[in-house]
């Protein structure tokens, strides 16, 4: 039976490794206080931005900034998506059903977290909530789906 589009299984291992490494590096980058030690300065094009915290918004201009986090995001999101939505080794309709179920739960859990963050986090620290929200759904989905697949293969390990 034809299933929905998914990335090939052979990309799973590589994308999983690259996603894990880049995600850990990104988490470390955001948690260290000596952020400036890891700066990679580059001239970037901005569709929208400002020239400082109190500066006016500008559009379509060039600015120089650190691109360390941008570079890491270029790994985290694409490889996260490929890892999350590549075929399983034994892809079949039950795996597809578990994928859909995990995706639904990940969306619900993610929005509960975002709502709680929105209601109970105020000030500049709220930026952290927005940062987490960028990849939390993908991350929660990956954890839920991997756990379900793990249990699926474990509970049915022995034939009756």
């Amino acid at each position: 039976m034809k299933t929905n589009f998914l990335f090939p299984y052979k990309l799973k291992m590589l994308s999983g490794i690259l996603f894990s490494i880049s995600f850990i590096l990104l988490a470390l980058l955001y948690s260290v206080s000596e952020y400036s030690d890891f700066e990679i300065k580059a001239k970037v094009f901005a569709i929208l931005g400002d020239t400082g915290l109190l500066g006016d918004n500008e559009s379509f201009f060039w600015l120089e900034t650190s691109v360390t986090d941008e570079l890491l995001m270029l790994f985290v999101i694409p490889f996260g998506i490929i890892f999350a939505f590549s075929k399983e080794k034994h892809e079949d309709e039950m795996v597809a059903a578990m994928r859909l179920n995990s995706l639904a739960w990940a969306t619900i859990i993610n929005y509960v977290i975002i709502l709680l963050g929105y209601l109970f986090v105020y000030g500049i620290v709220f930026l952290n909530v927005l940062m987490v929200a960028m990849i939390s759904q993908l991350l929660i989905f990956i954890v839920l789906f991997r756990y379900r697949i793990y249990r699926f293969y474990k509970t049915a390990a022995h034939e009756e």
Partner: protein
Amino acid sequence: MKNNIKVQRAIYNLTQQELAEKTGVSRQTINALEAGKYVPSTVLALKLSKLFEKPVNEIFELEKED
């Protein structure tokens, strides 16, 4: 929904693995089907029906809550 896949499989003397290969699903899926934890798609139900040479109604049966 109830099913008697396990009985049908015994009639044809197939292991879960062999049935899985013949229907193009994983052995774990056959296991979940037999345990009543998973309701198959129409395609898989028809494949099983064809393989066991029995109408779908004789393999699957609705329960009260369905």
